[in-house]
């Protein structure tokens, strides 16, 4: 018989149950033991390994075409939205960050893949700290720099020079925001208890980004497809699901003909050719992205994408935004229907790998409207 409780350290335990914390000593100790060993004997795969689906592990590999299914309803989302709106008004806007978490949490929880829901782990506290940091380090200095010369009555030359400085300042912060927001969101997303992550140096992306914007005008726009594909490659191939890395093998020149087409047809089609290009790009990105031995595939087409986007806009504008919950649900359903993950999928060697991430980039992205996802 134990005389101190192994859980809370209470000294006078006379029976099998601790009178202070109520734990059953024998059960607790055995569970501790199990926890130490891990609940089940796992295949000896301690470190990350490229998940080539070898025949030896065929039993754990599933095949076929898999979809993310969105199971949420517009009604529930509207309920969340109403309570959020009330609390945002009542707290003079401070609740905004928690509201955002509640909406994301719902959308993630309602997205199901292979019978398991995604989960969102971000908190309002993280978001508000991220926002405050972004405001302090970016928004405040940029605004001051933009307005001070004029308020102080400086000469037009000084005003123009500071405006240019602010533009350069912003141009450097946009890639930082893109990477930061992606890093934060992935790190706060899990499926089957395993977190996603982005493991990349922000500076590398900023270099790619700034170089791209310099090369686009120099090449009369021909560099644009390479630029967007390079960005996508960077963000995808540095994304991980636990110990499993996503890979991307696309090349910018493959999109060059489509890019040509969209530019030539942009005016005659009143801009609608853009949807055709966007759909082509989505299909291309999907087909060249792999994870855990499986490859993505997209069935999106220009008309489908155009109709979804335009009808969502019209719906939002006509209802002054009130139909947002239902339109969001509809948009998520469609988008997930178009995307599938095909082929053998090896999940059992994937292990958790924790990453330290803060929400500053997320806060920054709010200032640029550079939202990547649905919310």
């Amino acid at each position, binding site marked *: 018989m134990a005389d101190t409780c192994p859980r809370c350290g209470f000294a006078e335990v006379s029976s099998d149950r601790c009178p202070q914390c109520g734990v059953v000593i024998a*059960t607790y100790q055995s569970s501790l033991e199990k926890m130490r060993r891990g609940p089940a004997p796992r295949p000896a795969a301690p470190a990350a390994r490229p998940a080539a689906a070898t025949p030896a592990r065929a039993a754990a590999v599933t095949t076929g075409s898999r979809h993310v299914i969105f199971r949420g309803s517009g009604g529930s989302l509207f309920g969340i939205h109403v309570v959020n709106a009330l609390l945002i008004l009542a707290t003079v806007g401070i609740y905004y960050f928690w509201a955002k978490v509640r909406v994301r949490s719902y959308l993630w929880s309602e997205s199901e893949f292979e019978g*398991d829901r995604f989960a969102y782990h971000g908190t309002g506290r993280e978001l508000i700290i991220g926002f405050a940091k972004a405001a302090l380090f970016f928004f405040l200095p940029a605004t001051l720099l933009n307005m001070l010369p004029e308020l102080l009555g400086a000469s037009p030359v000084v005003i123009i020079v500071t405006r240019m400085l602010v533009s350069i300042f912003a141009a450097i912060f946009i890639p930082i925001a893109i990477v930061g927001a992606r890093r934060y969101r992935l790190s706060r997303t899990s499926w089957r208890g395993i977190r996603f992550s982005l493991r990349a140096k922000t500076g590398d992306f900023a270099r790619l980004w700034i170089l791209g914007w310099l090369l686009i005008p120099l090449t009369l726009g021909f560099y644009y497809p390479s630029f967007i594909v390079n960005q996508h490659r960077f963000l995808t191939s540095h994304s991980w699901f*636990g110990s499993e890395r996503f890979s991307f093998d696309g090349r910018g020149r493959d999109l060059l003909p489509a890019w040509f087409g969209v530019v030539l047809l942009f005016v005659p089609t009143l801009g609608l050719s853009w949807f055709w290009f966007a759909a082509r790009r989505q299909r291309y990105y999907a087909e060249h992205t792999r994870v855990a031995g499986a490859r993505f595939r997209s069935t999106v087409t220009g008309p489908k994408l155009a109709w979804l986007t335009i009808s969502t806009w019209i719906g939002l504008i006509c209802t002054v935004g009130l139909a947002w919950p239902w339109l969001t649900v509809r948009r998520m359903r469609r988008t997930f229907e178009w995307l599938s993950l095909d082929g053998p999928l090896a999940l059992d060697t994937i292990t958790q790998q924790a990453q330290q991430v803060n929400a500053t980039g997320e806060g920054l992205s709010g200032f640029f409207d550079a939202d990547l996802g649905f919310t």
Partner: protein
Amino acid sequence: MRLDWDAAYLDGRTAARRRATVHITRTGLDVVLAEDGARFFWPFREIRQTQGTYAGEQVRLERGGEMSEVLLIGDVGFLSAARAASPEAGHLHDPSRRRFRAGLTFGALVTAVALALGIYYFGIPAFAEVAAARVPVSWEESLGRAIVDHFAPAARRCDDPVRQARIDAVVARLTATAQPQPYTFRVTVVNSGVVNAVAAPGGNIIVFRGLLERTDSAEELAGVLAHEVEHVLHRHVTRAIFQRASTGILMAALVGDVSSVVAYGLEGARTLGTLQMSRAAESEADRDGIRLLQAAGIDTAGMITFFDKLSARERGGDDILPRYLRTHPTTSERIATLRSLAAAAAPPQGRLLPDDAWDNVKNLCGQRPADARSPRR
């Protein structure tokens, strides 16, 4: 009471999903894994519920920090059973409260709408008034200069120092009675056929040639100027800027994340609101404008005649006139209000300028070639 439930277990270290059975005890959950019979215990106080509060969701219980373990239970009946079995499970969601929660949500909807209307009709105007009063005059002046440069680029200004001095004299006579006030008033005449006048913040008043040429006496222009001077003194434009910004924030709060698309839809609603607020500002400028004229000893009949003339042209369907009326909605009701205000005091003796002298002044832009958009037919 059912105490054993089928579940799935995620250990937080691998992506494997394991079948498990959960047994509810008084202090926590006894979990047994199906494949190897491993057992462990989760005390209720260490359990967080992160999913399963909405219809159709499975129950998700988490335990531990960064790499938390997860139990997934498909049947929400589990929650009721756990809550019934132990007082320590009180923090888990209660499915029987979902109806009540729907009621609460409806209550929140009603409250949110009421709160939003209250803020819109009372909170924002009050805030805008307080905030506008605290804006330094120098800021208003630099904002006003930007507006003047926009409406009246230097090339389109009518410069005639002699005749301009007559107009300035009218302004000086008006503002002399409104002391103390921090603004330096300046009238800029623009060579454009538009029948309009604009009060920019900080004391800059823009009068378009079209309006000037339609006045038949100095008193008529004095009426328009009195109205515009009151806009400046009441800081109506500065107030409108605050109102617009805070209306935008209010709408963002109601609609949630405002993407650029929703912003377009909101723009329409916001403009309607702005128009409605500007009507209130117009009546205020009318009312106090009449008082300003009376205090300066200028005949108020000029203002009323001019507004009458404009509204008659509006009814006549003249296309060029209504620009002023759209921003300064001259309804017969407003003119009636002006008449009753004017009747309160006896008309003063004497004129500002004889009519033939005014005919000279109002053609301030006359030497220039006629504007292409000239309303003359």
